[in-house]
């Protein structure tokens, strides 16, 4: 693999990482803290929305973000041929 392709892999990894971290920041600090009073005018399952994000929604988002990261990195690793496989090509 030449330097160009290595750099491509790393750049795509960083782009995915930054996208997910922006969502992480917006949901936890944005929705749950900075905008809590605005969002509390709406409600979900009987709870004020901003409060709900702070105690439920943000945690659920964190779990999904990590799953998306792991799945997308599997695909990226395969595309660049750097995934961990045994001699038969099975995933380790």
């Amino acid at each position: 693999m030449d330097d160009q392709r290595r750099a491509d892999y790393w750049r795509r990894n960083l782009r995915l990482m930054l996208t997910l971290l922006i969502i992480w920041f917006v949901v936890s600090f944005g929705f749950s803290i900075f905008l809590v009073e605005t969002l509390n005018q709406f409600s979900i399952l009987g709870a004020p929305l901003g409060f709900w994000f702070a105690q439920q929604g943000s945690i659920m988002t964190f779990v999904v973000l990590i799953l998306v990261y792991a799945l997308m990195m599997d695909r990226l690793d395969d595309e660049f041929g750097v995934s961990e496989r045994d001699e038969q090509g099975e995933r380790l």
Partner: protein
Amino acid sequence: MTILAWTWIFVVLTFGIYFTIAWRSRVSNTEEFYVAGKGIPAVANGAAVAADWMSAASFISLAGIVAFSGYDGSVFLMGWTGGYVLLALLLAPYLRKFGKYTVPDFIGDRYSEGARLVAAVAAIFVSFTYVAGQMRGVGIVFSRYLELNITAGVAVGIGVVLFYAVLGGMKGITWVQVAQFTVLIIAYLVPAFAISSAVSGNPIPQISFGGLLGELDALQTELGFAAYTQPFVSRTMLDMTLTTAALMLGTAGLPHVIVRFYTARNVRAARYTAFWALLFIAILYLTAPAIGVFSKTNLINDVSNTPIEALPEWVGDWQDAELITIDDLNGDGAVQYTGDEATNEIVVDRDIMVLANPQIAGLPNWVVGLVAAGGLAAALSTAAGLLIVISSSVAHDFYYKRLRPEATEKQQLLVGRIAMAVAVIVAGYFGINPPGFVAQVVAFAFGLAAASFFPAIVLGIFWKRMNSTGAVSGMVVGLSFTAFYIIMVVFNDMERWFNISPEGMGAVGALLNLLVAVPVALATQPPPTRMQEMIEDIRYPVTPSRSGADNA
């Protein structure tokens, strides 16, 4: 059957399971002792991380903390889960590819031997402060449910942990933690489902608790408290932000959590370990705020303006345990629960919210026994995970890397086991005789990890130009600043800067670390080529070969 009998049954049964697992996974070499032979599947490793992470405090106190601080308690819910996103995306896969035994290993290999020493001392300090709290938790559960005194309770805890941690090392600990996670999550969910059905008719607490918030807000305002969902009552927006950030960065920097990613099978397994771990942790963390709302509503409805003779039985039980105190100030024979300290007549310890939950909801005696076993599982699993960090820092980072590089496997293993045994006994001593500052220790541990490890490791992975001088000066500045603020505010009554709590200052410490490390690194020599190649290598799960032909 009595609560005591049920408790004994559950405790003996669960301990029997732990001992059996530990005996079957006993180890004979250092790789198995420190990192379980790097052969733990992602789901099991995730459950082990969850048990490791959720301590006696998460199990017993979290719901109560949220119940008594309402919205402002969200800092702990978000802080102690959001850090896993940082771990998964910024640290776990790269540290697994690096593939050594301890956190100081990475700092030492990436930067310098001096940095390794600083990191090893910090790792031991952080872990010790934490483990003392866990042994105390074991003692409290034993004394409250099994009618042993705290000393005897802690002694039993020491014996149990010694047996399976010393015998099985990381391998034994990991498989026992999988069992402990199962016990603790069942013990947490059973009463939560029951109380949710009883209060709302819907067994899923996450769905039903929102509907109660209107009632709880009204109750609290009526009694002179701020509404439950009202933001920024005890913390300003700035303090909420910084504390959440500090707890997140600290979570991602705590050595006993990071080290679990070395035990994963490979880089891919490390990523999925982070996913499973947070999923398992989220089950408890999404339930805790619901328990908080149910028990707070029940508590107010049951005690407020109730004549003292007519109080429910559980109030008397927990008065005996000194977790509830009632003082009829105005002598009217009823309990006034208000937000005004001068007229408030009842003080309730936050731990009640989980401990008394089965009784408040009128559940059968066996549920109480189960909750006791769950609390023990939470405390023991966390203690064991911390002990392996202390043991590996002493035996690997100090003894093997610094003192006797020629030591054989057998000698290293022996030193590791002795270090662990000494550590658990010292921790037990502090569990029986807790130093006065135990409650402030959490601020220290997270502040320290946030201001030192996290920036040093992340910069080390993502910036090849980062060098030893930069990393060490950043760590020193971040650490001294954070420690200074915590010590001054907590012990010397210094006025808080901008109302920032001591536990939130770690975030500022981390920022200072970064602001110092980067310019210092740029002003000094870049790291050697060999180092830059190592960093290049950890960025790919399988390092691609350099030849242009192999372009698959």
